[in-house]
């Protein structure tokens, strides 16, 4: 018993000792665990918090509303409309093919759309919504919305898409937007993350492209929490982006519409400019196209139709189209000669119907000749020989210098696509371009706007405005940004003596109102809107000596695309010029017969701010004019205005 007791005590002491050792070891391990916790949770907490947030917080962009574009009266030219579309998410859909098949029984989805959607679905992560069809009608949209319980993974959504309510009228001015392409991304060094949103719309041509940076606006951000599969769980916060800048253009939607209506059927272009400040009131190229087609996604048939049309609807003839300006260029030649002092205002040149120099004979359009003509008469009757003579005296370089001063052969800074520079040739230019000497015949040709001289309707409108105002007005298209007027600098003087300008203006006045005026038929009889103008006809083909000997074939006998271009420039009122118009009808035969009447209508429309009264026309033409106006299909301003109200 005693021994057992002793044993027990020894055993107890041993267990106590070993137990305490165990306890100490355990305390040491607990301390190590505690230190580890302290290190990770207290010292490195910020690092880990950052890693955790990086895991779960993703930033999603909110596309901003694209800036709206208005005309000078505040009528919407480019807006954003709700685009109803339907998306599908693989993760939720399960059997994607089956769901798509069900969907196609509710709304029309083409086979190609279905195929595209399927490839996209399998390329993207399972939680990414893929657009199956867009631009649904409200009816189709609600049909899907009602049936979503039966369509797993399908979700009807609303986004913004560009719309051009005025359709073809402003296609060349505004251009259009389209989904950003890989090509766009490569071309731009723009790091804007918005461009990486699939199908994000950016400006492709026209104002939409040129002022893309302002119109686009800046992206908003949503911070969202995602789970480990990348699926959105909740929105943490959102910062709305800045919508794009709203633009107000200088154009007048009614005048633009009228211009298009008048040019309808022709391959033609016209520019209407305010001579006092350069505002472009209308800039129309016909035929046009509906830019909404491009936003929607143009079909290959539609595109082929546009490409194959010999009237080239996609080309903007107003700023891209370069033409020999023909007799309208005589304004420049006359000014150059007067300014160069090689001819006085009353000095005359004898026109026998031709002009001979260096053994070559250059014909006047009037083979019988004009007799003695001074600058007024030469312009009035468009006598070619007078200009051959004075041009030869003053030399091509002085003419080119005057052309530049009048705005021809320079690039005007308009936010439109491919604004052409045109050409006022010089000796140096020819040497550099063709490595040939300038010939006297080149000067003769250039003096009447043929040969190397090239100008767009915009150039001619600028020339006419500068002549009418005596100032170096620059064309402008943007009137205001976000309601703030873009300031117009007072245009500097052309630096030409008023006397020279007066004589040339008088010549143009006489074209319309003189006894021998080439465009007298297209005059305005209302005295306070008296108009000055200049016709032009530019040859598209060379007339050979043989043909001239046989007798020149008249335009009516030629195929359309071989006929002469008809040009006309004009401004009014003559005593206090307000608007200048330039107009070209491709292959329109004669400036006075084809171009001038249209230009008059457009000028009158601008002056009267609406359909002109028949009082302005010579009495004998009124019935014809009335019938023509009645046949025009013009936009109804009341419908447009009520449309604005309902949108507001």
């Amino acid at each position, binding site marked *: 018993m005693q021994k057992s007791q002793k044993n027990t005590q020894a055993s107890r002491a041993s267990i106590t000792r070993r137990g305490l050792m165990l306890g100490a070891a355990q305390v040491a391990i607990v301390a190590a665990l505690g230190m580890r916790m302290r290190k990770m949770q207290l010292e490195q907490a910020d690092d880990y918090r950052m890693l955790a947030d990086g895991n*779960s917080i993703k930033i999603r962009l909110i596309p901003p509303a694209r800036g709206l574009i208005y005309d000078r009266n505040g009528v919407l030219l480019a807006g954003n409309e709700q685009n109803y579309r339907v998306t599908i998410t693989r993760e939720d859909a399960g059997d994607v093919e089956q769901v798509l098949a069900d969907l196609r029984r509710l709304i029309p989805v083409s086979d190609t759309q279905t195929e595209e959607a399927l490839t996209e679905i399998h390329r993207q992560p399972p939680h990414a919504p893929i657009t199956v069809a867009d631009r649904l009608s409200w009816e189709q949209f609600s049909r899907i919305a009602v049936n979503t319980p039966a369509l797993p993974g399908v979700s009807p959504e609303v986004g913004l898409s560009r719309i051009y309510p005025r359709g073809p009228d402003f296609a060349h001015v505004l251009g259009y937007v389209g989904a950003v392409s890989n090509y766009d991304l490569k071309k731009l060094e723009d790091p804007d993350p918005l461009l990486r949103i699939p199908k994000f719309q950016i400006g492709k041509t026209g104002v939409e492209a040129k002022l893309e940076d302002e119109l686009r606006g800046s992206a908003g951000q949503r911070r969202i*929490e995602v789970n480990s599969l990348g699926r959105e769980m909740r929105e943490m916060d959102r910062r709305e982006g800045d919508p794009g800048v709203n633009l107000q253009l200088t154009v007048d939607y009614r005048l633009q519409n009228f211009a298009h209506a008048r040019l309808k059927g022709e391959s033609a272009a016209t520019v209407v400019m305010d001579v006092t400040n350069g505002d472009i009131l209308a800039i129309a190229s016909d035929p046009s196209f509906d830019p909404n087609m491009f936003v929607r996604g143009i079909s290959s048939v539609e595109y082929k139709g546009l490409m194959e049309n010999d009237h080239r609807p996609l080309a903007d003839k107003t700023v891209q189209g370069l033409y020999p300006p023909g007799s309208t260029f005589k304004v420049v030649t006359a000014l150059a000669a007067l300014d160069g002092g090689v001819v006085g205002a009353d000095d005359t040149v004898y026109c026998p119907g031709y002009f001979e120099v260096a053994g070559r004979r250059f014909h006047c359009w009037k083979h019988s000749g004009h007799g003695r003509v001074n600058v007024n008469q030469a312009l009035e009757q468009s006598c070619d020989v007078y200009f051959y003579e004075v041009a030869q005296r003053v030399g091509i370089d002085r003419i080119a210098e005057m052309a530049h001063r009048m705005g021809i052969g320079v690039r005007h800074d308009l936010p439109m696509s491919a604004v052409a520079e045109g050409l006022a040739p010089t000796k140096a230019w020819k040497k550099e371009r063709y490595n040939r000497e300038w010939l006297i015949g080149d000067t003769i040709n250039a003096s009447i706007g043929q040969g190397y001289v090239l100008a767009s309707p915009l150039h001619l409108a600028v020339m006419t405005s500068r002549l009418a105002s005596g100032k170096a007005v620059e064309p402008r298209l943007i009137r205001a940004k976000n309601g703030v007027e873009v300031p117009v600098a007072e245009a500097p003087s052309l630096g030409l003596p008023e006397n020279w300008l007066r004589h040339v203006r008088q010549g143009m006045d006489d074209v319309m109102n003189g006894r021998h005026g080439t465009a007298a038929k297209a005059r305005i009889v209302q005295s306070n809107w008296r108009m000055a103008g200049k016709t032009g006809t530019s040859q598209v083909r060379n007339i050979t000596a043989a043909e001239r000997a046989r007798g020149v074939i008249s335009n009516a006998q030629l195929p359309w695309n071989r006929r002469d271009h008809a040009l006309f420039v004009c401004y009014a009122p003559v005593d206090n010029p307000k608007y200048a118009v330039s107009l070209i009808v491709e292959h329109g035969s004669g400036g006075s017969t084809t171009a001038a009447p249209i230009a008059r209508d457009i000028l009158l429309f601008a002056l009267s701010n609406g359909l002109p009264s028949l009082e302005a026309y010579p009495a004998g033409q009124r019935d014809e004019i009335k019938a023509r106006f009645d046949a025009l299909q013009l936009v109804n301003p009341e419908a447009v205005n009520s449309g604005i109200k309902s949108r507001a």
Partner: protein
Amino acid sequence: MSYLESNLKTVPTGIRKVLYLNYPLIILLAAVCCAGFLMLYSVAGGRPELWAEPQMKRFAVGMVLMLVVAFTPIWIWRNTSGVIYLAALLLLVAVELFGTIGMGAQRWLDIGPVRVQPSEMMKVALVLLLAAYYDWLPADRVSRPLWVLIPVMLILTPTALVLMQPDLGTSIMLIAGGGVVMFAAGVSLWYFGTVIGLVVGLVFVVLESRGTDWQLLHDYQYRRIDTFLDPTADPLGAGYNIIQAQIALGSGGWAGRGFMQGTQSQLNFLPEKHTDFIFNTLAEEFGFIGAFGLLMLYTAIIGFSLHAALMNKDRFSSLLILGVAGTFFFYFAINMGTVMGLLPAKGSPLPLVSYGGSAMIIILASFGLVQSATVHRPR
């Protein structure tokens, strides 16, 4: 004739036993379990029916079982320890033959509607048998080689069976639990030194065997070792779990991100969030305060157990309590060490907190043994 038998008349009987329960231990165990319910509710995204409710039911069963074990006289457990051990061993063999495969290993045995994990039972049975063995063995023979070999065989037999499942975590815990009892019983420190030396050598051999035809571990176990050594080497593959787990734990900071606000667990970045990595969810949502608090609760359980062991003059009881507490200690220390990146990831649950009924019931039952030893202590 042990100390217990000679002082039997001082042992409380009948209803008076209720007065001698170790209440602090019961409260601590319940507190840890409650932390578990809270976390299971959180990681289920507020759906208690998923994990929290089943876990509560098992807790109720476990508590009842603990009391039943506690009121059963300790000598009955001592005298039946051999039978219990043999039963657990048979179940382990049965699992090898008929077991259900789960999580890449064969661990479960379906007996009628009940699903048991014999390896969990073996943890208790081994401690019980070894305590009885050293109670029976005269103190002067404890360190003799033959008498050391017997308990070693008792440990290694079930360990080998568990290793075949394969379940490395439980194998280590069996060795550790058995080792604790042998250590407490006074086996010479030379043996332990030798074993530790051998283990280090073995680890070396195991690593060397990789890729040869006598490869000792599964490929996934090697990958876990790699992952432990450098979790960033394969952040989306093998290292993903441990990196995400550490991010969850570290991002908790002082006070945590708030109940059910942990982004790592709520957004599924954290894998196995209701079992092996539940501690990380707790650390993420309740911060250092919560994590360290839980560690202190565990430590307190060990502390009270140690106190109970040292106060008990019966050799069997002391060894049993030390063994149970030691096993429990290894249980949570291995899990915490793993999820904090101190030990290789090897998939062990956090005792009483992780979802898993079998383990919880067995742990509560084993603390029933601690209670029984305390209640039936001669006074």
